């Protein structure tokens, strides 16, 4: 089982280690080779940006690192545990407790209000009875996150009532609610104007400075420049 340990400041400990990743997709009768042997490692507390042109395989890499997809070949280890060796249940646990996803299009559930969206990963990690016993704590934590992101007054609003920047901050709060070891952000500013995007990046920087490990993919060099380390993905390989 992958442990959900407290976040550390940047250390030399490699928490995420991917090697020889290959991934292709069928396009008609042929296959599109997206990743052609990617080797990638992230140390605890790092803020890494993966940059590359549109369609270069950045999102695919992120999905594989977060256990949302499986590589055709190669391995992904989190704290030494190969994700391919995890059962479906343990992989769900990994996605629930160890990583937090932030997507370009926020991906909030329209039927839930802001606070419900934020505590959704807590609900997903426990049963109904567990939720009934810890719901106050989870909501308190969700409200604290909302306050830290300047959205305390929006907790009862539905996603459609929020601006793009506010939605992305809610998505970040959702990613953080279970205090994951790793945040995986897929073009977190890709759908925002530059000022709003900059505010989101400020938030990510603040999180990283408090010890949160972040892997962000972006096609925008300026956005990537806000990260501590930049790696480039081109022609299916990191260069």
């Amino acid at each position, binding site marked *: 089982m992958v442990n959900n340990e407290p976040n550390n400041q940047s250390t030399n400990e490699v928490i995420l280690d991917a090697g020889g990743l290959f991934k292709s997709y069928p396009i008609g009768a042929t296959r599109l080779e997206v990743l052609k042997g990617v080797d990638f490692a992230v140390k605890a507390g790092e803020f890494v940006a993966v940059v590359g042109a549109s369609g270069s395989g950045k*999102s*695919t890499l992120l*999905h594989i690192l*977060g256990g*949302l*997809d499986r590589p055709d070949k190669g391995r992904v280890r989190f704290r030494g545990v190969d994700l391919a060796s995890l059962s*479906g*249940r343990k992989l*769900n*646990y*990994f*996605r*629930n*407790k160890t990583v937090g*996803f932030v*997507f*370009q*299009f926020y*991906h*909030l*559930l*329209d*039927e*839930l209000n802001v606070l*419900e969206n934020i505590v*959704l*990963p807590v*609900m*997903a*990690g426990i049963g*109904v009875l567990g*939720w*009934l016993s810890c*719901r106050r704590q989870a909501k308190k934590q969700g409200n604290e996150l909302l306050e830290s992101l300047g959205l305390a007054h929006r907790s009862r609003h539905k996603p459609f009532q929020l601006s793009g920047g506010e939605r992305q901050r809610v998505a970040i709060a*959702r990613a953080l609610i279970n205090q994951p070891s790793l945040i995986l952000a897929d073009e977190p500013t890709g759908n925002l104007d530059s000022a709003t995007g900059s505010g989101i990046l400020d938030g990510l920087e603040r999180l990283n400075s408090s010890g949160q490990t972040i892997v962000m993919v972006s096609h925008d060099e300026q956005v990537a420049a806000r990260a501590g380390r930049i790696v480039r993905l081109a022609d299916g390989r990191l260069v």
Partner: protein
Amino acid sequence: MYKLILPFRYLVKKRITLLAVLAVALCVFVVIVVMTVLSGLTSGIKDKYHSFIGDCVVGSKSLVGFVYYEEFLDRLESAEFVQAASPVIKSPVLVNVKMSADRMYTNRMGQLMGIDPIRHSRVTGFGKWLKHHRQNVSKVFTSPDEPNLPGCVSVHAALGWLADANADDTVPKITFDITSLPLTGKGALARAGMGLINTRSFYVTDIAPVGLWRFDRDTIYVSFEEAQALCGMNLGPKRINVIHIKFKPDVDLQIGRDKVTELWDDFVKTTANREYGDLLTQVKVKSWKSYQSDVISALDTERMMMLFIFSLIGFIAVFIVFVVVYMIVSHKSKDIGILKSIGASSVNVAAVFLGFGFLVGVFGAGIGALGGWQFLVHINSIETWLFEHFKFRLWDQSVYPIGSIPNQIEAKLFSGIIVFGITACLIGALVPSIQAARRRPIETLQVSQL
């Protein structure tokens, strides 16, 4: 917890779910109303047959009948499981309806039943059917108007032979001349060479409608002794055609019938070698259900057919829910990806959509059941209103033996239909839910899918 919240929110927010809820409600409404009315009709008819026959009969289809019945009646009445028994003479007869001494109105075939009114009332509903002698059954075959004639009891339908007969419960002042063809114990004509028939006049003293056309159309009750004499069954060892039996209340029908069969077989062993003993071998013991098996099995078949037809309605509900849940799954593919990205298992994703189907079932079945219940409660007043305003009657009371449309809701049937409705919704939601569970998160979260 999201497995409870999300299905409910999908149900409330998506207008298309209203279609599914209404479809299920309509199906449940129709099934509850039709099955309750049909069930009431069939059980009403069965009750009437049961009431007419008693629990069990020992009888022969032969017009000759069987002998030594008094000895067997003694055995029956001393058995601990028998409450009462009634010997009956049954024979087809010719009935001439006479309005006055010189005015013969019409003649028809009838079914004569010779009974002891007291004994027969203990076994069947005869006493309850009488319109004027309910409190005085023993006097049913006597009339102060015609003290010189024996009385007979007819039924509405038989009176219907008279074009100008009253439709109410008034007994018309008429006489039936009943003619029978008496037979000897050997099956020969009893009065060969002396005029082959027996004719006797009876004054109609009461009416006793059973509520079943099969019996009401031609049955005429006369006293046991008169019938026995009319049919020649008092010649030689006295004979009857049937013994009707009522079991004690706690006796199971089949067990009671088996015990009567045992008693009868035992009786035949000791009696068959006596004069006319061969008549006993033609006698059968039957429960009231098997005695009228042609009708009872037809009713049961009809009920099964209706259940089958309405299970087809269930398929429609399944299909509608399938389509709606499939559309919800298609519209909510992004939600599937989000849930999986935060660690929800495939089973839990399926549970969200199955929960949606379940809620459609609960609300649909609930609304349908409530509507059906209210409709059944008011069905007779609705029919009365329709008749008063549009002269439309759903059930022609001259055809259907019912005073009012049956609307007694059976808890078992009612709850069974609700469970059936909910189950149909779960079945309808099953395939789309499995499809949702199988979807890969990256397929649903890709920009091109949004």
